[in-house]
């Protein structure tokens, strides 16, 4: 009898716990998003084109918090986000785009052959002084940098720790709604926070204390955006999972429109 009671109590307890957990949320339900990033190489991968998705490979910051340090690096979402996005660029614009990405770094001069570069998880980068100098030179010659997928106060500070060495003399400004960068192809006045898949099932869209999406930029002397900073959002995830029904279309749509606008802006300004 005692044994029978014990088993019944255990079953009841498990049911109660699982019910409670189910009521709290589906935290332990498996994510519908494949984060491996693996994707087949397209047949036209070697085509020479006008534009390619140039992803910047950078050194990540090393901090006392090992878990945090490991969380972000240059290859997040690589290469699926890049290729998913490029397919949209090809379909929605006349940009002659290569189907596969180009990985570039700030250690060789090859970067000057790629006037548009993308940095993911820039809240984790830690550029050397030489890399800062090269990035500054690159941008002042006419290159364009888009940063994405970094969130909250702490990652902003890490981002700025390098960026303020690139441009100690240029402030980061909010890009106003009427800036051509938001209208060059698509009018994107109505912008919102684009969440990463970590937010699934998207009951909230922010990470850490990055509650509001921030559209910032660093301008050159002629008032042109050189560095387009997408803070507190994850456009890369929106591109990467654009083919996944579990990722809301409205976020993907905005991420594509923003990305394409930034490319065409970089090719016109």
């Amino acid at each position, binding site marked *: 009898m005692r044994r029978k009671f014990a088993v019944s109590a255990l079953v009841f307890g498990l049911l109660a716990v699982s019910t409670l957990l189910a009521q709290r949320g589906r935290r332990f339900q498996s994510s519908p998003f494949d984060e491996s990033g693996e994707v087949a190489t397209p047949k036209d991968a070697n085509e*020479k*084109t*006008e*534009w390619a998705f140039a992803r910047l490979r950078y050194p990540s910051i090393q901090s006392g918090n090992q878990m945090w340090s490991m969380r972000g690096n240059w290859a997040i979402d690589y290469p699926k986000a890049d290729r998913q996005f490029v397919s949209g660029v090809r379909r*929605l*614009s*006349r*940009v*002659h785009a290569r189907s596969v990405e180009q990985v570039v770094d700030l250690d060789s*001069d090859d970067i*000057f*052959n790629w*006037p548009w570069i993308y940095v993911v998880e820039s809240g984790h980068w830690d550029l050397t002084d030489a890399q800062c100098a090269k990035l500054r*030179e690159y941008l*002042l*010659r*006419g*290159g364009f940098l888009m940063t994405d997928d970094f969130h909250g106060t702490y990652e902003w500070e890490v981002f700025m720790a390098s960026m303020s060495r690139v441009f100690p003399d240029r402030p980061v400004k909010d890009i106003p709604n009427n800036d051509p960068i938001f209208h*060059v*192809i698509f009018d994107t006045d109505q912008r919102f926070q684009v969440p990463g898949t970590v937010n699934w099932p998207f009951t909230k869209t922010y990470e850490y204390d990055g509650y509001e999406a921030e559209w910032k930029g660093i301008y050159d002397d*002629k008032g042109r955006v050189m560095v387009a900073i997408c803070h507190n959002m994850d456009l890369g995830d929106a591109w990467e999972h654009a083919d996944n029904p579990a990722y809301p279309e409205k976020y993907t749509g905005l991420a594509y429109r923003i990305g394409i606008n930034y*490319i*065409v802006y*970089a*090719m*016109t*300004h």
Partner: protein
Amino acid sequence: MFEFLFKYPAHVFSKGTIVLAGGWPVWLLILVWAIAAAGLGWVMWQSKPTWSRMRSASLWALEAAVACLLLLMLWQPALSVSALKPQQNIVAVVVDNSSSMKRTDADGTRLDAAKKVLNAGLLKDLEKRFQVRLYSLDSSLHRIADVNALTGDATVTKIGDGLRQLTAESSGLPVGAVLLLSDGADSSGGIDRQAITEIRSHRIPVHTIGLGKEQLSKDLEIRGVDIATRALADARLSAVVRLRNRGFGGQRTKLEIRDGSKVLAAKEVTLGKDGQEQAESLLFSAGLAGARHLTVALKAMDGEENQANNSVSRFIAVEARKPKVLYVEGEPKWEFKFIRRAVEEDRSLVLVTMLRTTQNKIYRQGVANNKDLENGFPTTAEELFQYDGLIIGSVESGYFNMNQQELIRQFADRRGGGVLFLGGRNTMSDGGYDKSAMSEMFPVSMTGAKGTFEREVASVELTPAGRDSLILRLVEDPEKNVARWKTMPKLADFQAAGTPKPGALVLAEMVTPKGKMPLLITENYGRGRTAVFATSGSWRWQMTQPKEDQTHEMFWQQMMRWLASTSPGQVVGSTPNALLSDEGKLPLRIDVRDKNFIPVADADVRAHIMGPQSTAAEVKLTPDPVIPGAYIGEYTVPIAGDYVAEIEAIRNGQRVGADTMLFRREDGVTENFYSEQNKELLEKLAEETGGRYWKPADAGKLATDVAYSEAGVTSRETYDLWNMPIFFLLLLAMRAGEWLLRRKWGAV
């Protein structure tokens, strides 16, 4: 010697004709010659000489020649020449009275030399035979009483005008000859053909006495400066300076262009061979809009005999207008971005762009308002022709309908604009241009093949024509410029545009993996010009060079200026020379076109002229009977100084357009140039009119020679020639020769 042998000077022979004064017919002389020669031959044959036939023939020839010469003398050869009748003719003595005659040579001034020649007996000799009238010459002719009236203070010499005046004023007088004493320094740059023809028609010989050194020993001189008379603000201009040195060959001096005291450009030049003209080019910025009075100057060398000819002035109208260039691009490209950036730096150009960002969207930049190009590429001449230049990028020809294609062609042909075709995957024959109506305006014959655009790097080389082109001038020094181009980064891509057409100019070539091919080709097309730049990869010049480097910007700004800066407006005023040197007459020509750039023949065209000392005038221009839309007129510039002409064309009460011209008159400057005696001019003048060129030392014989003239009151004089010493000497020589030969051959 000639006169000793032939009894009379050579020029008397050149003026006269040979006659036989004996009265017997010429045919008889020939017959007697034949009989004498035959008789002598018969006698020689009868004597059966023992020597060879060759020796017999030689002796016969000598004897026959003696006989013929004697017979000729019997027929009394004579010279018939027209000569002025004593005391019945006027000889005009004209003395150059300009400031160049005050230049000092070895024996005092040239004017002193002229007075010396006249006072040394020439005037008296002339007065013995003729009535002598003395004139001083500057911009016109003035009769003077004596040589003391000559001061050398005049700022101008116009020999042609002076002689015209003389012939016109003395048409009823028996002027037998003109004697001109001058250094040949003519303010108008020489005597035109019409003036010489006019003087010749009066058959008055002009004898010239050249004064001044024929060659200076130490001198630098600017012989000419070729420079644009109009330019856009901040335009890069080229001045080609022609200079010559005497006695400084191989030495170095400084050449500079100044605007007031501000030096715009300067360079060290190595002076060429003595007496040879050399050309040096200088590049400089036109600066802000307005009138630019430039001085081109050579630094004086030690011991220079004349330093006043080391600098010249030029007048440039720097225009405030901003030419507009329309750039249509078919797809987002880095080239597009970096061209825009390069041209944005140029405050004197407006670049309007339309870019096809998607299949149905056009992104416009640089438009004046939201309506501009709202419906895409212009469909009317009025809309398209408001631009001065047009760039067509990677846009397939089919994007333009037939009307638009014809408008693009007319843009260059009729409007006079510049059209530049850029390389790209949708242009040239890849874009179907070889089969379009626009193919004829390309400076290349396209291959018709597809796949001519390749994304492989290519390096750039200048051609010989490119070395002289302002489009490709990155460094002022031509050699350094060539070297600079060799260090330019490679282009990102290239296109096999085709073969340059006859008349096209290849300014740069590309060295590609597929061999060398033209990169930048230009040609004139109708009133305008076209070009092909067979790449879309020059953006690497910007991205792969330090940010401070300006070569990419410089190239594209210069390219745009070539494209658009010379495109005419609807009303364009012009004159052959905006800098009048001692010249009072300014010819004006105004071309008037409507908004479609069709010539307007019924406009009211006027020039409102303002000058120094409140000078103001209005000139109404009249239609040119030959050229539609052209109006011509002339303004007499009263005094030296700067002038502005505001030109306005009105048709049916509506203003068609306006233009502004600047011009300047300066007096007394040209006298400083060509400081050596212009012997060539004086010789030519004498030769063309039947006179002679004289050196001052020979002038003593002039009074006799002047008598031989066909002008004025003349008589025909006959001078015996049978008694010329040459005949006697010939006879003697021939007889002596025969005797020597016979002696040598043993016949004597």
